[in-house]
C-alpha cells in the first residue's frame, strides 16, 4: 500500500491527484477511469479541507492499493477531524426542476456514482472512507 499525508488545504489537492495519477498511469488505467478517480479524489479531499478541521487545519492521509484479476484500485481517505459520515448525506434529487434544485450535495453524489464500492468507519477518532473501483 502506498500513502501520502498532506495538510488538508485546497492548495494540496493537486499533490494528491498527481500522486494518484502517476500510479494509475503505471497500471495502464484508461484515461476515462483516471479522470473519474480524479473527480472522486477531488470531491473527498475538498470536503476534508473545507469541513473536517474547520476553522483549524489538520492532516489528511490518502492510501492507494491495487488488486489484480479483476483489476481494481482501493483508495482510502483518513482524517482526524470532526466525526462525519459522508454516506449519511442526503442525495440530491437529480430529477427536480431548476427552481427547486439546490446547489449542495453534488460532491458526494458524484463520488458514489464513480466508484463501485464505498464504506465509512469512525475508529480511534479517525474518519476512514474506503472506496473500490474496478478498471
Amino acid at each position, binding site marked *: 500500500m502506498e500513502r501520502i499525508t498532506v495538510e488538508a488545504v485546497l492548495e494540496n489537492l*493537486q499533490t494528491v491527484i498527481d500522486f494518484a495519477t502517476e500510479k494509475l498511469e503505471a497500471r495502464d488505467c484508461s484515461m476515462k477511469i483516471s479522470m473519474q478517480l480524479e473527480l472522486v479524489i*477531488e470531491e473527498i479531499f475538498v470536503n476534508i479541507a473545507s469541513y473536517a478541521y474547520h476553522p483549524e487545519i489538520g492532516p489528511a492521509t490518502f492510501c492507494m492499493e491495487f488488486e489484480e484479476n479483476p483489476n481494481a484500485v482501493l483508495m482510502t481517505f483518513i482524517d482526524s477531524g470532526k466525526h462525519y459520515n459522508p454516506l449519511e448525506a442526503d442525495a440530491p434529487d437529480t430529477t427536480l426542476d*431548476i427552481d427547486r434544485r439546490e446547489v449542495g450535495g453534488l460532491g458526494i453524489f458524484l463520488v458514489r456514482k464513480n466508484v463501485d464500492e464505498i464504506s465509512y468507519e469512525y475508529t480511534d477518532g479517525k474518519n476512514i472512507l474506503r472506496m473500490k473501483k474496478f478498471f
Partner: protein
Amino acid sequence: MEIKKEQQGSALTIKVIGRLDAGSAPELSKELTTALNDVTDLTFDFAELKYIASAGLRVLLVAQKRMNKQGSMKLINVSEAVMEILDMTGFANLMTIV
C-alpha cells in the same frame, strides 16, 4: 483555468479553458457576478473545458438560475467527459446544450 469573454451588446460568450474545479470555480463565480449585468443571452463555450467537478457545477447552476430571470443561457461544444458529468447529475436536463 482561463476565461475568455466576448461581448456583443447583450450577448455574452464565455469560453472556459482548462479545469473547472474547486480551485478555479470561485474565480468564475466572481467573474460572473459582474459580467452578467445586462446580459440576456449567455453562452458558455466548453470546447476547451477538460474537467468539471461539483464546485464547477454549482457555479453553472447559479448562473442558470440567474439567467432564467434575465434571459437565456446555453452550453456549446461540450466534451464527452464533461457531458458525462452533466448527464450523471441531471444537469443535462436543466440546461440547454447545443
